[in-house]
């Protein structure tokens, strides 16, 4: 028998899609890569700061185990530990691979890779290419994929949109429905498996650092088709972005990694220019409140502190919700070399030079820790079974997901420079399992009855035709803004059940209004509005997953902060006490005197809270709403314990 080449359809040409394509080609599969735009223009190019790998190149005693520990702790124990461990152990090899592919990583005097510091860790663990690391990584992966394209192994369908999966009567994914964004025709691509590498959903919010295509529509469509969506309520707010009408532009954490300091004037509304305010009249609040991690506390912590400074303490610059990010104490040469990319961005968009004037920044929606629920398999030793078809498979058989669209690697809060890693890791790691899956699959795509594809094609063409005919009074772009503002006001850094419940109702109202949308573009050539309306529909459902999940989760974990449920960690608490407590309480009733006053009570609260809430929330689409249930998290490697950064 001639060996049949497996056909895998990859949606998305960011780091995840490109890595998966490269690996699958190497394993002999035939790959079709589908994306909204030229792959090289994918959102991943935005990433600035770097990518983590514990190589201990500065002799600080770093190791993959430390990387694992920081990631799990940073994510407040909600990440899947076996996967995170494997990712951290693979990270150095991933960096070497990227280096071999020609990524211009910064180097040391001797010519080795250089590493910088990032948030949530005390080690220099972040490899970087200036301040445009994401761009550089995308380019070198894109180049490898172009090489395969040149050799005829990859077909690219740029300017095409994925609309949904083709599911057979058993619910197995047999291909994808694709919309040509130029001709506006709908067609089906039969395949052995489909990978969603479609990135994050930050466009659900009005003020985010995301690219315009990050609507989360592909993931939401999978949810609407029956896939589970996990941990949707965990949305990362990045502490340092600059304002803008169309987008909030990120000032990478690397600015703090390279020594940037956050401060506000001690006098509220101080009218002086920042450089004329003397040192002792500045409040370096992160350094003072967190002497250990200082400006490099994890993002959830930094965002909450900024929120406190500007809203509770009313110390925001000129009364506005902004603080200074100061690099002026660093030399111009140093800044140009290490942070040139972001310095240019700030200068271009604000007209001010961060080399001489502190930057004004504030928090912005940045990343979704949650996403499509995906699976994995471990062997008898608890290690990842690298050939398992279950790795990265969604709850729809044959439909895979990786990168920002999945949910398992960052728990309740992602550490900086871990996303690029999880994107490339998942892209590479899922490939062997997918090949295995296609081998186990009885039918080849050609054996699937064509009627299945005809039906899907008809369904989607009809749907787009009816969207194009929508002739109400509501402008879809306006409605998107309304939804985005609603999410900004109610489901952001500090969450309150009253407001969340209201937001759920308001999302219903937005869905009502959606019925009266007008397709404001009448063209049947390269009409972006029809496809946007479909994405808006998805965003309405996605905002419901996020909001409902946030409403139901009555605790404070990572980026999900409900002051009402703050367990109030005593200031002098040491997380190791909790490990002692667990051990002692396994064989005796622990007396309160065994620990400093208040600590035992706190630890009991913590234990009870974990019992109830240390769970992955899982949304399933039912009766037009998310039905949310909770599933256990694999914490087999490191015992969950209270986080502390000061």
């Amino acid at each position, binding site marked *: 028998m001639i060996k049949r080449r497996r056909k895998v359809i990859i949606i998305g040409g960011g780091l995840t899609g490109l890595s998966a394509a*490269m*690996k699958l080609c*190497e394993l002999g599969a035939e790959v079709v890569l589908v994306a*909204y*735009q*030229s792959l*090289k*223009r*994918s*959102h991943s*190019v*935005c990433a600035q700061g770097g990518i983590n790998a514990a190589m201990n190149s500065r002799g600080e005693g770093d190791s993959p185990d430390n990387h694992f520990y920081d990631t799990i702790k940073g994510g407040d124990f909600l990440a899947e530990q076996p996967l995170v461990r494997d990712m951290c152990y693979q990270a150095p*090899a991933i960096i*070497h*691979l990227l*280096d*071999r592919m*020609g990524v*211009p990583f*910064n*180097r040391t*005097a*001797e010519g080795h890779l*250089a590493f910088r510091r990032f948030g949530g860790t005390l080690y220099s663990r972040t490899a970087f*290419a200036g301040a*445009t690391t994401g*761009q*550089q990584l995308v380019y070198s992966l894109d*180049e*490898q994929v*172009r*090489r395969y394209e*040149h050799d005829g192994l990859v077909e690219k369908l*740029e300017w095409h949109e994925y609309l949904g999966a083709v599911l057979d009567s058993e619910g197995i994914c047999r291909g994808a429905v694709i919309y040509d964004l*130029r001709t506006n025709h709908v067609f089906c691509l039969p395949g052995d498996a489909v990978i969603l590498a479609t990135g994050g959903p930050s466009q659900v919010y009005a003020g985010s650092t995301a*690219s*315009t*295509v990050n609507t989360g529509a592909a993931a939401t469509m999978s949810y609407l088709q029956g896939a589970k969506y996990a941990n949707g309520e965990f949305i990362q707010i990045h502490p340092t972005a600059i304002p*803008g*009408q*169309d*987008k909030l*532009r990120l000032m990478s954490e690397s600015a703090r990694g390279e020594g940037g300091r956050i401060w506000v004037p001690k006098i509220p509304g101080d009218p002086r220019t920042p450089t004329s305010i003397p040192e002792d009249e500045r409040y370096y609040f992160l350094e003072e409140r967190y002497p250990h991690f200082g400006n490099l506390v994890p993002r959830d912590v930094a965002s909450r502190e900024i929120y406190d400074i500007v809203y509770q303490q009313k110390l925001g610059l000129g009364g506005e919700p902004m603080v200074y990010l100061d690099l002026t104490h660093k030399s111009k040469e140093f800044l140009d*070399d290490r942070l040139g*990319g972001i310095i240019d*961005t700030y200068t*271009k*968009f*604000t*007209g001010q030079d961060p080399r001489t004037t502190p930057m004004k920044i504030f928090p912005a929606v940045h990343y979704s820790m949650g996403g499509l629920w995906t699976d994995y398999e471990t062997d008898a030793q608890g290690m990842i079974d690298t050939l398992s078809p279950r790795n990265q498979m969604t709850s729809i058989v044959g439909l895979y997901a990786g990168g920002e669209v999945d949910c398992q690697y960052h728990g309740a809060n992602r550490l900086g420079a871990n996303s690029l890693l999880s994107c490339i890791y998942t892209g590479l790691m899922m490939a062997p399992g997918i090949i295995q899956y296609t081998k186990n699959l009885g039918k080849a795509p050609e054996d699937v009855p064509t009627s299945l594809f005809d039906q899907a094609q008809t369904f989607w063409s009809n749907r787009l035709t009816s969207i194009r005919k929508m002739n109400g009074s509501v*402008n879809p*772009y306006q409605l998107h*803004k309304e939804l985005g503002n609603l999410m900004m006001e109610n489901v952001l850094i500090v969450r309150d059940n009253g407001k969340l419940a209201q937001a759920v109702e308001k999302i219903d109202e937005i869905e009502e209004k959606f019925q009266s949308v007008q397709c*404001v*573009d*009448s*063209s049947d*050539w*390269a009409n972006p*509005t029809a496809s946007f309306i479909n994405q808006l529909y998805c965003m309405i459902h996605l905002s419901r997953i996020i909001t409902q999940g946030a409403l139901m989760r009555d605790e404070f974990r990572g980026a999900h902060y409900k002051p009402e449920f703050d367990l109030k960690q005593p200031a002098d608490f040491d997380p190791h006490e909790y490990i002692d407590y667990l051990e002692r309480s396994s064989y005796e009733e622990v007396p309160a005197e065994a620990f400093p006053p208040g600590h035992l009570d706190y630890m009991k609260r913590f234990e009870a809270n974990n019992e109830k809430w240390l769970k992955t929330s899982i949304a399933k689409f039912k009766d037009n709403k998310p039905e949310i249930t909770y599933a256990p998290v694999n914490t087999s490697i490191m015992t969950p314990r209270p986080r502390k950064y000061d």
Partner: protein
Amino acid sequence: MKSKPVILKVKRQDTPDSKPYWQTFETPRKPMANIISCLQEIQRAPVTADGKRVNPVVWDCNCLEEVCGSCTMLINGRVRQACTALVEKIESPVTLEPLSKFPVVRDLQVDRSRMFDNLKKVKAWIEIDGTHDIGEGPMMPDAIRAKRYVLSECMTCGCCLEACPQFKAGNDFLGAATFSQVRLFNLHPTGQAQKENRLDALMGRGGIADCGNAQVCVEVCPKSIPLTESIADIGRQTSLKLLKDFLSK
């Protein structure tokens, strides 16, 4: 007092072969506004200055921070990205036109696949043995890295080609961006294995010999890529190769 609106004169085109036409729009002047946010205003209220309800203007964009290269267009006749075109820094009325050297898809949207095809022609990649864990990459002085990094920031936006007098819609001139990419890959220790092949691709039609050295490309590059330096360097590399090829005949 209400500030004056931004006036945008947009060159529109419904399909690749239909005739272009102009429309004028007025959008509210907002702090930190850029051309993208003005175009977004038009999406939210697609009405011309004289009150006619029209289809919203179509354009490309993605990252909105000048790293993806999508939103390149002619703004007041100058080729640049719309995201970094801050309204307070440009003269109103603002004219917006699609790039003229690439086929128009619709309105301000053009097809730049020629640039990506060119990257294939010159084998703009490093030929690695495979993705397996076979150890570190080549050692490299940071100075070489720094040289490569600057070239590697090219976002295939097409500004340099739009400005170049040699690069025309119908011809096959490869253009400054492609030349510069060859330099990038030829600088890499592993990339050097394909150096001769890359230079071959630049020595045929549309290659480096067709460059008229007008040097306008370098002036419009938003990433300040040293294109003239690249062109000179590639010129040297091809001359050397010519000599070598001649001597070994």
